[in-house]
């Protein structure tokens, strides 16, 4: 066993060393090779520190970055995957880059964004201390399969997991994981109180309308967004939980939230941003992060990287947000509608492998609620699909401009001055950032 582990690490080290020499980013490849030659390769690593994993459909990258920033500010030595690389192979590559030849990983904490379907794969091999689950939404169905299949995979893992389980108590798909192992005393729920734009009826396509325990239709007091809200099963009472952390008085104007009687100012101001922070707050509370650090991170830290990232250009401001599924896109549409005054929208839609080839999810985006949107520019490989979708929601087709080429689209968008929003799906978000930076900084000193 020792010999196998030794060679596993050695091969991996040589590989990632070679890739670095070649100037390549060793994101997935070394891990992929190790998994191919040894299915137990993760067991070759010796990790003594706690591992905190973040999973869920939307918000993984942001929450992972926030938690990492909290620990960093506390002077801890952490290893994390801030750019995603959240599959078994990506996590293996990350560990390879940070271990000794003996496979020892030296850190105070490992904070790992982990793809939902890879939670059981990775943490059947590595000892997990805390699992944070944010939400489950429909996401790239042709790649991931139905949401239910994905939930069942994570649920199965939770059946034998005895570590800390930090769950979104307002998502019926997530809260059910708390029932998976009745012997686990470390299940904690977080919740965000009703906010100003919460609705009485479902506003956007949602999952989990039926009780996972008894199949009855769930009853909602209110919906925050999609199927996230205060729910309860009229049949079996599923949904009645006590909360470990709870955001009260969420104020999107300031923006701020109150938790455990203390008011915190935040850098972002949307409801799903608050849910992300509530997950972060739960981890900070659990690990005894100082109030000073919490305040500073909540107030100042920005993930950027296409997550509610701000751009400025000659009197125009633009917010770019990644949306790889309807809920993500609905969130930007929501933020756009909650912003007063006229605005324009750029929507960049690709259908590459990592996006899912199927773009029918755009029909689950609720565009009928457009509020003071004066123009829409569409771009990407499926620029016309998103244009048709927006048109059929009742939006005036004369106000839709299709520019499949991204540079053309950005130029078109900034041909007017004012407030702008941009939505880009998975493989579109980095090219969109690059195109925005090229345009704003001029072509000569492009950086992306």
């Amino acid at each position, binding site marked *: 066993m020792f010999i196998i582990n030794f060679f596993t690490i050695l091969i991996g080290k040589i590989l990632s060393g070679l890739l670095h020499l070649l100037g390549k980013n060793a994101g997935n490849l070394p891990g992929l090779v190790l998994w191919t030659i040894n299915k137990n390769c993760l067991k070759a690593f010796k990790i003594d520190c706690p591992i905190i994993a973040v999973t869920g459909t939307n918000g993984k990258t942001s929450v992972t970055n926030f938690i990492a920033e909290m620990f960093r500010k506390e002077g801890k030595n952490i290893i994390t995957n801030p750019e995603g690389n959240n599959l078994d192979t990506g996590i293996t590559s990350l560990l390879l880059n940070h271990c000794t030849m003996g496979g020892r990983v030296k850190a105070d904490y490992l904070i790992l964004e982990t793809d939902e379907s890879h939670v059981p794969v990775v943490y059947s091999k590595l000892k997990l201390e805390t699992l944070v689950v944010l939400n489950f939404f*429909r996401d790239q*169905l*042709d790649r991931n399969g*139905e*949401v*239910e299949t994905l939930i069942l995979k994570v649920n199965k893992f939770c059946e034998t997991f005895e570590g800390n389980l930090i769950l979104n108590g307002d998502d019926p798909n997530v809260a059910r994981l708390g029932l998976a192992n009745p012997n686990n005393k470390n299940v904690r729920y977080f919740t965000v109180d009703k906010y100003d734009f919460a609705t009485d009826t479902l506003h956007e*396509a949602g999952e989990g*309308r*039926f009780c996972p325990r008894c*199949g009855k239709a769930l009853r909602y007091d209110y919906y925050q967004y999609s199927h996230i809200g205060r729910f309860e099963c009229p049949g079996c009472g599923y949904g009645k939980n006590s909360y470990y952390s709870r955001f009260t008085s969420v104020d999107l104007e300031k923006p701020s939230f109150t938790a455990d009687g203390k008011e915190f100012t935040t850098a972002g101001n949307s409801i799903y941003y608050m849910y992300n922070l509530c997950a972060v707050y739960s981890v900070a509370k659990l690990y005894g992060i100082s109030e000073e650090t919490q305040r500073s991170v909540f107030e100042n830290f920005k993930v950027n990287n296409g997550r509610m990232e701000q751009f400025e250009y000659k009197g125009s401001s633009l917010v770019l947000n990644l949306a790889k599924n309807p809920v993500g896109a609905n969130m930007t549409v929501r933020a756009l509608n909650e912003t007063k005054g006229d605005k324009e929208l750029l929507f960049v839609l690709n259908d590459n492998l990592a996006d899912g*080839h*199927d*773009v*029918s*999810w*755009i*029909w*689950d985006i609720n565009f009928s609620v457009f509020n003071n949107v004066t123009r829409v520019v569409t771009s990407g490989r499926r620029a*016309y*699909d998103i*244009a*048709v*979708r927006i*048109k*059929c*929601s*009742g939006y005036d*087709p004369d106000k*839709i401009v*299709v520019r499949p080429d991204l540079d053309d689209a950005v130029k078109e968008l900034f041909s007017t001055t004012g407030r702008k929003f941009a939505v880009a799906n998975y493989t579109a978000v980095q090219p969109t950032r690059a195109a925005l930076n090229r345009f704003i900084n001029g072509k000569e000193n492009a950086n992306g």
Partner: protein
Amino acid sequence: MAKLRILHMYPDMLDLYGDSGNMEIISYRCKKRGIDVSIDKYSLGQGSSTDFTSYDLIYLGGGADFEQQLLADDLLSCRDNIMEAYKKGTFILMICGGYQLMGQYYKDSNGKKIPGLGLFDYYTVASTDKSKRCIGNIVIETEIGGEKYKVIGFENHGGMTENVASPFGTVLFGNGNSFGSKSEGYFEKNVIATYLHGPLLSKNPKVSDYIISYCLSRGGNIRPLEPLNDTLEEKCREVMLERLALLGSVKSE
């Protein structure tokens, strides 16, 4: 004013892959022409209080396995009423799961046989290997309203449908009713059943208009539909057909 009465069955359960978009598109194309549309939503348990024959169009989308199991019994309880409506000429549009449930039976990937409504002779058997699914862009050649028309969509199904008397179209690209099949879907004058998502009507305005015309003709309205500005839709079709190298024979459209 002309009016279209639609019954959208289980919209809260059968709405995978944006299938509810089909209703949005029908409404959009009717409203643009001043045709009044009413869409009633049918939910579990409303069978006895619903007059299916009073509708011009009954629509069922596709759903996840969990939801399809929840509604199977309820749908069976509506069998006779749906059959009567179909015989009296109500148009029935079914996507994916809806398509399967109207046949003889559906045998799922665990070998469990779920009885269908038996409106039509076809039956569906899912591959026992859950990872074996027909997934991808698909283009079929249909003959709709006496004209050849390429219908473009996206298929994602594990079920293989056999014994189809009159398919919706012949496959030009993709799989169709089963792996590597020549035919896709099921078609009658007042029936379109298909695996095509996208949603179906988003890239195929002629299919929408066929359905709308048919429904209006029931009420004695046989005037041709006023044409709409479909520039975006046509461009969207062109991009996909070009990508799949099927543009050669598209001139007639």
